[in-house]
Each structure stands twice: as C-alpha cells, then as structure tokens.
C-alpha cells in the first residue's frame, strides 16, 4: 500500500483532501485549461437497505498496477495532460471519500471523457472489493456495473 502523497496513483487507508489533490495536479503543467474530477463517496442506501458501514479490500500490487494502466491509457487515448487516481481501503463511514479521479487537460472535453472512462474501467478491471454492513448483516458487493 502506497502512502506517499506525490504518487499519481495511490491506494491508502487514510482520507485525502480533494483540494490538495487538485492543487497538486495543477502544478503538473502551465498548459492546463480544464480539470474534471470524479469523487465517489459512501452512500447510506443500497437496494433499499440502510448501510451502516463500508469496508474496502484490495489485492496489493495488482490493484496499483491496474490503476497505473488506467492512468497511462487515459493520457494516451484521450489526449489529456495527466491524471491522478486515489482509492481508499479499509473501513469507510457513510459520506466519507472513497475514490478520487482528477483529469487535467488543455481543454475540458477530453478531461470529461477521460474521467468517465477511468472510473468505469476502474470498476471493471481493478481488484478492489466492497463489503457493506446493514442491519441484516454483512455482504460483499458483486453486482455494481
């Protein structure tokens, strides 16, 4: 698990500051004219049930590797300047930050597209699992497209 804050791809237990992460990416280039962010947070309701707690688990090394592949592919395919991806693991309360993607580019269009593709690709290819705790017990979530 990486704990360095200068890496553009991180999986970490601790929370992150959206502002700090955006500011860090703004320093990448003086040619940035558009920034799109996606922030995923802990939702209280799922399939009609109240969630009391979330817990995320990952496959160390493979998960980081997949996030880096998504970052590199986003830059190549959408022509953005850079991207950072941060995903938290461990226990997460309702309303807390889970995942942040920051796409920076010369213009907004490519950053919107890159950000949307990156979160979908993360869910499809990155070995991270979510366990929800409700009043009826705990369940590993396996069906979130």
């Amino acid at each position: 698990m990486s704990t360095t804050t200068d890496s553009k791809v991180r999986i970490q237990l601790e929370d992150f500051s959206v502002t700090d992460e955006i500011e860090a990416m703004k320093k990448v280039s003086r040619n940035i004219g558009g920034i799109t962010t996606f922030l995923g947070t802990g939702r209280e309701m799922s399939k009609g049930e109240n969630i009391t707690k979330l817990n995320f688990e990952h496959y160390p090394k493979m998960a980081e590797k997949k996030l880096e592949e998504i970052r590199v592919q986003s830059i190549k395919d959408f022509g953005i300047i850079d991207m950072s991806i941060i995903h938290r693991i461990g226990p997460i309360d309702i309303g807390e930050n889970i995942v942040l993607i920051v796409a920076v580019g010369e213009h907004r269009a490519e950053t919107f597209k890159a950000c949307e593709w990156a979160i979908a690709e993360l869910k499809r290819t990155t070995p991270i699992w979510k366990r929800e705790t409700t009043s009826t017990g705990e369940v590993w979530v396996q069906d979130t497209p």
Partner: protein
Amino acid sequence: MITIKYFASLRTIAEKEEDSLDIENPITIDQLSDIISKTAPKMGAIIREKKVMISVNQEMASADTIIHDGDEVAFLPPFSGGAK
C-alpha cells in the same frame, strides 16, 4: 511451491486467505482447480463454473494458463471498487 490467494467472498468459501502447493511440473489453471476440488469441492466448482477471475503473478489468466513453481495464483470475485 506456488502461492494461492483468496480474496473477499472467496476467503469465506475457501475458509482461508492463502494456501501453498508443491508442484513437480508446471500445471494449468484447470489442473489446479482439480487439485483444489479434492479438498475444497465448493471452491473447485466455483472455479470450474468460471464465477471468478483468476490471476497469475498479478496478470489476468485463463483456464489454460500454465502455472510454474514460484508463481502466485489469485482467485478474484467480481470487483466492486469505485462508486456508482
């Protein structure tokens, strides 16, 4: 010796987080699932029915991927990271 890892829901089914297996010669994932079935039939069935993804040394693998001594095999249930 190969290392076998089980994640998330599969850890409960396999009743373990990690296992190791001595192999004399390289084997395929299919052959590994046969070996696992002998001691953990439920887990073996899940692998054969392709209800899980499999990686070898952190790269996605298939039923005919060959496993060598020293490799790390992981059984991965459907991912659910990120957020809707």
